[in-house]
């Protein structure tokens, strides 16, 4: 049970305090309710580029990193399709430095031309490093475009194409900032060796006078139900044939999300999982195979990804995958197999909760979803999943008409 206290400043900033006196450190986690799904389709990659610009100095503080390092702190940030998160860990004695820095960049950025010019280049190199130079690096770009016709999950957080980043202008940056980076659209979690009183007074002092901003009303085009299978074949200079298949699944707040999560663990995720045992070890069709989902807030994707053993035909490999999915759709999983994936989940949550940083991050995330206290009910939700649920949800997800397949073939 993770204890916490929550209050809201008059400008709408939600603040959560989680005390843990066993550590000398404090964690300050600031999550903004904006991700790549909130971007203009013609200006993709913006939420993430923006994350870089957040380190280019704010209105009163020319350098973000230096004073934090001077206070013995470390920080980082990430952007997903759903949200953007900034986090700091520093000695609890220097907690106020984190408030000073985070509140000033929420008040306003410096909007420096030089910073934009440099970070555009940095992000372009990041794009190349992760998506262009790696074999199969472009596959999830292509899969998203295949699986989503309408919803902005159609593009990756890094952006649809380099040109969107290269063309970003300072005016776009300012507009984006004042639309999304407002107190009313953020959740602040302070965790570690802190007291509620201290956090209250620091939050009032540093964040209290920042104008509230307008609550962002998300109104995204929803993905229509898919009615026919989609397929794509890519020929490329990769060493091995690879198989990718995705199906639409329920969003984060749906009970079926938990069923899908466990269902994925039954199929893959360990040496005794079904796909690995059957297709890698026994049939020797794949050299590796994984099943996972994207963890999206809105309706997401369940994916199977595998590299084929050289010489195996991709249609044969796909049939074998389907045969495993048919078992999921036609036979109840045994009590012990279901218990196994529940035990795994219990253990995963316990290990995640060991780190203060991870607890702070989870509290912010659940608060953004609706209520930080949901963090404490996750295990119950998993525990309530039955073998019958798994069967029904397998039938629901693994329909051919709900599927998107990419055969990524080696041309050498």
């Amino acid at each position: 049970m993770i204890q916490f206290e929550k209050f809201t400043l008059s400008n709408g900033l939600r603040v959560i305090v989680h005390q843990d006196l066993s550590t000398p450190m404090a964690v300050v986690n600031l999550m903004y309710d904006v991700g790549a799904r909130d971007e203009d389709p013609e200006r993709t990659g913006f939420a993430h580029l923006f994350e870089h610009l957040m380190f280019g100095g704010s209105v009163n503080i020319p350098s973000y990193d230096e004073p934090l390092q001077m206070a013995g702190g470390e920080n980082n940030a990430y952007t997903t399709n759903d949200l953007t998160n900034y986090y700091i860990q520093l000695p609890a004695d220097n907690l106020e430095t984190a408030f000073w820095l985070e509140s000033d960049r929420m008040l306003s950025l410096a909007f420096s031309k030089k910073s934009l010019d440099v970070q555009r280049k940095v992000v372009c190199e990041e794009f190349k490093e992760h998506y262009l130079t790696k074999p199969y690096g472009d596959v999830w770009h292509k899969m998203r475009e295949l699986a989503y016709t309408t919803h902005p999950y159609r593009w990756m957080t890094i952006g649809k194409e380099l040109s969107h980043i290269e063309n970003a202008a300072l005016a776009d940056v300012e507009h984006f900032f004042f639309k999304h980076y407002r107190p009313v659209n953020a959740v602040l979690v302070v965790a570690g060796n802190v007291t509620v009183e201290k956090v209250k007074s620091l939050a009032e002092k540093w964040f209290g006078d920042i104008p509230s901003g307008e609550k962002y009303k998300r109104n995204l085009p929803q993905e229509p139900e898919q009615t026919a299978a989609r397929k794509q074949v890519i020929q490329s200079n990769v060493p091995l044939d690879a198989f990718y298949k995705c199906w639409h699944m329920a969003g984060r707040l749906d009970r079926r999300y938990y069923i899908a999560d466990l269902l994925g663990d039954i199929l893959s995720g360990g040496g005794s999982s079904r796909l690995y045992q059957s297709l890698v070890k026994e049939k020797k069709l794949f050299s590796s195979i994984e099943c996972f989902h994207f963890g999206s807030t809105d309706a997401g994707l369940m994916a199977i990804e595998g590299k084929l053993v050289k010489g195996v035909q991709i249609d044969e490999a796909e049939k074998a995958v389907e045969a495993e999915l048919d078992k999921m759709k036609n036979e109840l999983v045994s009590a012990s197999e279901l218990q196994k994936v529940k035990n795994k989940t219990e253990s995963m949550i316990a290990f995640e909760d060991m780190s203060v940083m991870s607890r702070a991050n989870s509290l912010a995330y659940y608060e953004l979803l609706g209520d930080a206290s949901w963090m404490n009910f996750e295990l119950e939700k998993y525990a309530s999943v039955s073998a019958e649920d798994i069967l029904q949800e397998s039938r629901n997800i693994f329909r051919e008409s709900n599927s998107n397949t990419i055969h990524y073939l080696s041309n050498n």
Partner: protein
Amino acid sequence: MPDRKQAPVIVDAVDFDLRLKQAEKIVLKNGVEVYAVNAGAEEVMSVEWVFYAGNWFEDKNLVAATSNFLLRNGTSNKTAFQLNEHFEYYGAYLNRACYNETATITLHCLNKHIQELLPVVRELITDSVMPQEELDTYRQNMTQRLKVNLKKSDFVASRLIDAYVYGEQHPYGKYTRLEDFDSLNREELIAFYKQYYQQGKFVMFIAGRLPTGWPDLINRYFGDLPNAAGDMHNISREPVAEKKSRIINDAEGVQGSIRMARPFYNRHHPDFVKAMVLNTLFGGFFGSRLMSNIREDKGYTYGIHSFLQNHIHDSAWVISTEAGKDVCEATIQEVYKEMKILRDDLVDEEELLLVRNYMMGSILGDLDGPFQIIARWKNIVLNKRTDQYFYDSIQTIKTISAEELRALAQQYLQPEDFYELVVV
């Protein structure tokens, strides 16, 4: 309204009195040393078995890594599937890894399941059979994985730079070729397993909120294993003669992987910790000279880092980055420029304080939780140091002077000592 131009007063991290929580040391009936850190709020624990069974001890490439991998793939009584299912049923993570000197088995689990898990770990150490079929599957899948990795310039660059600095015959410098997989045979693996696991020398590290009576439990399952004495023979490095290389791995690549490295000493050399401070200033953190110049000012790369390799016998000082193909040479020149500045100019007090504070804060943050603390102890024990090394390091971070850093730069950051490699 707060004065936002004015930074809040801070406690300098250099003024912190950092303490490394003492590890409890017990010795099993067979002489095996066990280090334990009992801390944490969650009912979880980790147990690690460190065998002297790394690459250092093999006569042929891949024998150490493969026998380590196959530990979990079958015993006289259980198939690979049954073994995996056993650990996974209890939500436990059973990993193994092979390094240069050592090879490990690591168990992470909820405390309530430890009794069910330890006997099966014992089985892996005493009774692995490494079935031929498992070896064949492993061989095939690893060959395929290597083919994919060989397409990646960063993978190719990282292994080549080690081969240049240590020589291809040295455990730190050798790398796997596709044909190495073909020549693996089961008899060699079994022989290696017998000598270095069944009869081998090992040490254990345990952390978490430990159940009462844990020493008895460990003694019961591991206190009667042979634990033979073993010594590490010396192998000296044989670096290549040519220091500069440019390699084209993918003619259509848009980025180059840059690696620059010079030989360095291990943790027993008096300059090692001082060099850690100089390295932090140079390229060891986000605010370093290399990051500030090459990423934050020029935008040539997503990230550039320098580091001292964490090896037991010998080390190297490495600079590593991926940069746009057309700016690779410019990046290398900037790295040399930054070395020159460190050789010529004294670092000012403010920047030096920043580095000290950053390093201290980072150690403080790193000591958070039992798994992090035991990792420190493992490093100390395997490098044959004591916790005095930890306190001496902190003293060095707090007191090293700008003059000393400049002298170190003059001694070690000389372009002619560096191997230089770009793989596109």
